[in-house]
């Protein structure tokens, strides 16, 4: 038998022996109920009064212990509930999809808040006038990238899984447009010539103003795409 086990055995036996010895203990025999002849002491009134205070103290202690136990039980219950809920949500599609959608919306909004700087500025002061003020319904900004002479903003629509990107270049060296075998259309936007290339459900609008280029590319309805470009302050 190992040392540890032997020690545990000894401790258990000692505990048992101490309890068993109580049966033959002098004090226990002297004060057993059989020895009391029914001549119980009648406690004084003062004692009863003092006991009321002692009862209050005891009740306070017992209540505290009971509450502590209840709190632990409550906490355990809440944890179990959360675990079961989490399991249900992740495994039952009827719950999972709405929940994921909810958190995705929050993520999009917080991404929007993240990309929108102080005073709701998406880009720095120098480019403010080149940012379209019109954003189609259900589209949110998910990314902004800015350099010294250019920037782009990416917009996403989680409801129909579509997106578009708006680009601006301050000094474009080329005026070429990539048509990619789509249909080409020329339109006028506030007196500026713009080219619209459509291929299936994808649209590209390119508009040059001197060496500045305004460009939109993505999956967005034609009308909305035109409105986006029309809303740029600088070209109005």
């Amino acid at each position: 038998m190992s040392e540890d086990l032997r020690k545990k055995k000894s401790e258990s036996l000692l505990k048992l022996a101490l309890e068993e010895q109580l049966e033959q203990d002098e004090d226990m025999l002297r004060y057993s109920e059989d020895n009391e002849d029914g001549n119980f002491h009648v406690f004084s009134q003062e004692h009863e009064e003092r006991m009321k205070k002692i009862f209050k103290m005891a009740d306070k202690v017992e209540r505290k212990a009971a509450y502590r136990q209840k709190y632990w039980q409550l906490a355990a219950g809440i944890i179990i509930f959360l675990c079961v809920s989490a399991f249900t949500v992740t495994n039952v599609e009827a719950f999972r999809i709405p929940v994921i959608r909810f958190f995705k919306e929050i993520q999009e909004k917080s991404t929007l808040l993240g990309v929108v700087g102080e005073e709701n500025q998406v880009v720095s002061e120098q480019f403010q006038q080149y940012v379209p003020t019109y954003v189609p319904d259900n589209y949110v900004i998910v990314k902004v990238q800015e350099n010294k002479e250019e920037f782009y903003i990416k917009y996403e629509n989680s409801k129909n899984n579509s997106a578009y990107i708006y680009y601006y270049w301050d000094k474009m060296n080329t005026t070429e447009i990539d048509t990619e075998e789509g249909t080409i259309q020329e339109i006028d936007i506030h007196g500026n010539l713009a080219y619209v290339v459509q291929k299936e459900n994808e649209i590209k609008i390119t508009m040059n103003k001197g060496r500045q280029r305004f460009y939109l590319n993505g999956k967005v309805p034609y009308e909305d795409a035109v409105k986006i470009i029309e809303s740029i302050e600088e070209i109005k």
Partner: protein
Amino acid sequence: MIILLNMIDSEEDLSKFHRLYNRYKNTMYSVAYDICKNRQDAEDIVEESLIKMIGILYKIAEDEIHTARCKNLIITVTKNAAIDFVRKRENEPIPFECVDGYQESRNVEDLYIDTENYQELIACISQLDEKYKDILRLKILYELNSKEIASILNISEINVNMRFMRAKKLLKEKLKERGRQ
């Protein structure tokens, strides 16, 4: 939350102390009176003992109130409270805790007991002085900590540990003697 918890708690859950008092008040009075020989002092001792019991109430389960274990604990607490009361009343100094061979006692932790010497163990426990029986019960049987035991026995925590080691050493010596016989 508190209202909810109040609704959940039954009267029975909160009356452990009341039940303890009702069952053992006469026993406590008898123990106290046997030592102090005065009715009023005995009542004071009963009250003092009950206050001490509040601190260790958590050690007594609801279904243990009627057991010998619980009764012995109450008797031990009352008895020591009475002894201390009388000592203070008569202005007696607290006796010095003289522990012979204290350094040796520190190594007496391994008191090995087998089932073969179990009955002898019970006999040896009966032969110990009251104070050593009390300390062994309070520490091993009721699993009180040193602070709680010190409060019941009216000694310091250091003395509690010393007395406990001494008790185990004495028990071991008595077992050895019985073994030789």
